[in-house]
């Protein structure tokens, strides 16, 4: 076994966690706390909304810790595949945001971006941005796989 074999799959997974955790953290800190536009679960009382945010926060914290730990582990073993890592970050962040934008907002109707009349503008911006991130991630991933060959 090669001593410094780059572990592409694990590199992607580590930054996938980081990407999801980061985007969830940005969402929670910016939109839930600072702007207070919504909570995770808005279909009940504000107290339940805070409860749901707490659960989200705990999940993102642990995801960030796990991703960070795996990332450091790979780096120290010289096994970090950089392109795969970047790809994972963008796929994680964009993927989470898109999942939130489609599944949480529209399918499950857990909450909306903002409770205004012109919600469609916010939805467009939210999902549009997530698609851009996801696209970057996928393109990076394809380039990474090509570089593997």
């Amino acid at each position, binding site marked *: 076994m090669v001593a410094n074999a780059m572990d592409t799959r694990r590199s992607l997974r580590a930054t996938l966690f980081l990407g999801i955790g980061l985007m969830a953290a940005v969402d929670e800190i910016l939109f839930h706390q600072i702007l207070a536009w919504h909570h995770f679960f808005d279909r009940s009382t504000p107290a339940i909304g*805070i409860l749901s945010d707490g659960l989200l926060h705990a*999940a993102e914290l*642990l995801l960030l*810790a796990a991703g960070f730990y795996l990332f450091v582990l790979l780096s120290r073993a010289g096994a970090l595949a950089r392109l795969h890592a970047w790809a994972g970050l963008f796929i994680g962040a964009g993927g989470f945001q898109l999942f939130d934008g489609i599944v949480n907002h529209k399918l499950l109707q857990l909450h909306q971006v903002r409770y205004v009349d012109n919600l469609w503008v916010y939805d467009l911006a939210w999902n549009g941005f997530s698609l851009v991130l996801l696209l970057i991630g996928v393109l990076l991933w394809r380039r990474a796989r090509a570089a593997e060959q």
Partner: protein
Amino acid sequence: MLLLMAGTVWFAYLLAALWQGRRQPGWPLWRLASFTAGSALLVIALSPPVMSWGHADLRWHMAQHLMLGMFAPIALMLGKPVTLLLRSVPVTVARGITALLGSSPARVLAHPITAMMLDVGGLYLVYLTPLYLLSLADPKVHVLLHLHFFLAGYLFCWAIAGPDPSPHRAGFRTRLVALFLATAAHSILGKVMYGYGYPRDTGYRLTDIEAAAQLMYYGGNLAEIVLALLLFAGWFRREAKRRMAMAVVNG
């Protein structure tokens, strides 16, 4: 008096560590340093100036609790004090201690979920009920609360990520779930205190309560991240050992 106790325990640890240092395999210097740092945090948190600041300013009270309940326990437990104790006492005493620690009541107490309820549950009781007011009025309650914070915090940190070997320790997944629930509960409490102005009827300004709640929230987050990293590191080490052992068996 608590200061004296903390100082005595630290001194005993120092003596034991130095004694171990003369034998094989010795005692790692960094563990001594960690235990010392934890003891120092305890001493600071319980020192008279910090105590009086904590009474006057809710933010200092929060800082005290963060030190007592989270950061001192983490630093102390990384010093592996129980391992050091077991190595320093006669074998018969060590066996007695091990039997006690392995007994059913001890195992239930040290289970991550139990520890979590004692630790975070205690927080809810203190801040959402008149218990906090009572502690300000009655010094005995006050001391008991501080003691509880430290003990419950130590128990929780150890249950999640303590390095002292424990054959009956709960599995990785249980501990991860316990850490997740505790983090969520802690964050929720911080937000509830911030948003609804708890603890109530204590004469604190709302801005002070908000600042204290933020300190609790982010300080707690930092401690929780550290615990998560320790948990992962411990899991990784055990996995690596297990895989090496399998390789030896199969190879």
